[in-house]
């Protein structure tokens, strides 16, 4: 954070000392702000801002929650009621029918959860490590190859080979067809996350790196012991996005896994349930299939709840890492 970027006069008069030890000990990640709570007098503008914030955030949260409430209530409704009168905020004709259909083959669902959780946990861990390493290196001003490698990575977002060549390469040439690796490996990182991490690195003052070098530490040790602990919000953000990427993924599964694996990743399993009806309805294929009990609207809704429920609980855990990592000290710029 360069003070020159901030226009307010006050900061020019304010100086800050940043010492390594102070910074390292204060970022303890326990979710508490470790600077002593200041009794700063709040003036009218603060109250106005705070009130607006509370109101707006509440409204937005409602706006976000509302459709989910519809989904939830529809999942507990009876199909015939929904057919006649559409969705509502409260369940119509309360029933567990849709859920019992999903859990009728509990083995599949449990297997799907297991596969997805495993992939998410390991993928996030490995991906986070690689991404933060790369982001760190790319931010170091004294790394001569940083721009070349940055461009190399970024370029991949501009051009993509398309479905057929990519599929041929991964499924056939790399032999990953039918293997969970086809999904797992491809989600480990994206250029966006690397560049995001690189951007977050600017919150770590260069003085840290310098003092580490002065102490004779190697680049990796500086990274591991000094920079990383200060980047909790960044790690939490990138980690969260990675985890969500794994949790939500179904496209790669449909392409590379299909029916070859016994346990499909969760979202793909549910996508199958939701889309089978559509696929059959709109095609000539439907002529051969007996349509006895096709997934209904309530089933689709129940699938959504089953898929989403757990991951929503992830955020509150991760939330405690979203604390400021840098603290205040006295001056000498």
């Amino acid at each position, binding site marked *: *954070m360069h003070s*020159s970027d*901030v226009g307010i006069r006050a900061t020019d*008069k304010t100086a*800050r000392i940043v010492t390594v030890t102070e910074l390292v000990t204060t970022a303890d990640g326990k979710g508490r*702000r470790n600077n002593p709570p200041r009794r*700063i007098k709040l*003036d*009218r503008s*603060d109250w*106005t*801002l*705070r009130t*607006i*914030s*509370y109101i*707006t955030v509440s409204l*937005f*949260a409602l706006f*976000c*929650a509302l*459709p*989910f409430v519809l989904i939830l209530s529809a999942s507990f409704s009876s199909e015939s009621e929904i057919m006649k009168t*559409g969705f509502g905020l409260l369940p119509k004709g309360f029933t567990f029918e849709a859920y019992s259909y999903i859990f009728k083959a509990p083995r599949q669902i449990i297997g799907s959860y297991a596969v997805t959780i495993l992939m998410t946990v390991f993928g996030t861990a490995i991906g986070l490590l*690689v991404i933060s*390493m*790369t982001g760190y290196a790319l931010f*170091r*001003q004294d790394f001569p*190859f940083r721009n070349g490698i940055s*461009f*190399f990575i970024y370029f*991949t977002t*501009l051009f*993509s*080979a398309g*479905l*057929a060549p990519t599929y041929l390469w*991964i499924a056939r040439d790399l032999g990953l067809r039918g293997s969970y690796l086809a999904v797992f490996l491809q989600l480990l*990182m994206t250029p966006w996350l690397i560049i995001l991490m690189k951007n*977050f690195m600017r*919150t770590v003052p260069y*003085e840290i790196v310098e003092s580490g070098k002065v102490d004779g530490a*190697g*680049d*990796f040790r500086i990274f591991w012991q000094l920079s990383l602990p200060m980047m909790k*919000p960044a790690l939490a*953000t990138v980690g969260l*996005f990675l985890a*969500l990427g794994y949790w939500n993924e179904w496209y790669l599964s449909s392409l590379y896994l299909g029916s070859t694996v016994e346990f499909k990743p969760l979202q793909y399993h549910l*996508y199958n349930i939701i889309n089978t009806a559509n696929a059959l309805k709109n095609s000539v294929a439907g002529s051969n299939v007996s349509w006895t009990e096709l997934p209904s609207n309530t089933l689709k809704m129940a699938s*959504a709840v089953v898929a989403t429920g757990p991951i*929503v609980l992830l*955020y*509150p855990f991760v939330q405690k890492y979203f*604390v400021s*990592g*840098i*603290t*205040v000290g006295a001056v000498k710029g």
Partner: protein
Amino acid sequence: MTGIDAATEKVARVKPPHRKGRAWRQIRDSRVLLLMCVPAVIFFLVFSYAPLPGSWIAFTNFNYRDGIFGSPFVGFKNFEFLIKSGQLWLLTRNTILYNLAFIVLGNILQIALAIMLNEIRMKYFKKITQAVMFLPYFISVVLVGVIAFNLLNYDTGALNALIEQTGGDPIKIYSTAGAWPIIIILVHLWQSTGYGSIVYFAAIMGIDRGLFEAAAIDGANAWQRIRYIILPSLKPTFIILLLFSLGGIMRGNFGLFWNLVGNNAALFQATDIIETSVYRMILAQNNFTSSTAVGLYQSLFGFALVMLANGIVRRINKDYALF
């Protein structure tokens, strides 16, 4: 010049005695950093660069026997259908305009939301609202389309029911093309704002608290705090995200448009983007070449735009550029 810049200058200016060994020396000096980049480089080599030459398929009459490089060359024939459809300009325009709206409005709202979240002090309120704001991101677009239909349709939709109750005439939303840019943008914002605000929220968390306290000491009020501390500190993040999005300016969010609009041709003028139109045209064709051709068209456009924008940003502040 601040201490940081001075340090950088010093490091960069140290020149080894011989020019010939310079590259090797650089590699040796920065070998740890280089090694730290190796996994990512390998990843992209394997998963992004290796299949890239296969996009040659867009210029061939592809068959499985001869493979991508053995199939007969047909020049730009696979691109023709875009032009013949007479829609290319409309599709390009729609795709870009929607993306611009998504990027600009999206980022503004995400920043505003992050700033407001920062003001929330009640712990549980904060946790719950943030978790709730994530929810839309998880809901599959297929369901979003179903819910939208349920709310907006003429015969049984909740919106029209509400309008009737207050004495108005029900609206045929699914026949009114003009309403749909708003609807689509709203749905997109609903789905992505909570998720996207996380980045900005984390950035705000990274601001030196000392700045806030110094500002408070100097008597700055809340608005000045936002304007002079928070916004400038979010600027680098914003610019990087913006540059990043520009690369994909020609790529539309197929799932969103397809599930909301579907085959409702009454709305196409206002809602058709490249992906949906191409999908309708080559759906039955089992045609890998045409879809790759369209992808190339979209990529080239985004590429040109990004190079231009990055060049401009680079001139203003080297640090903010993507590369």
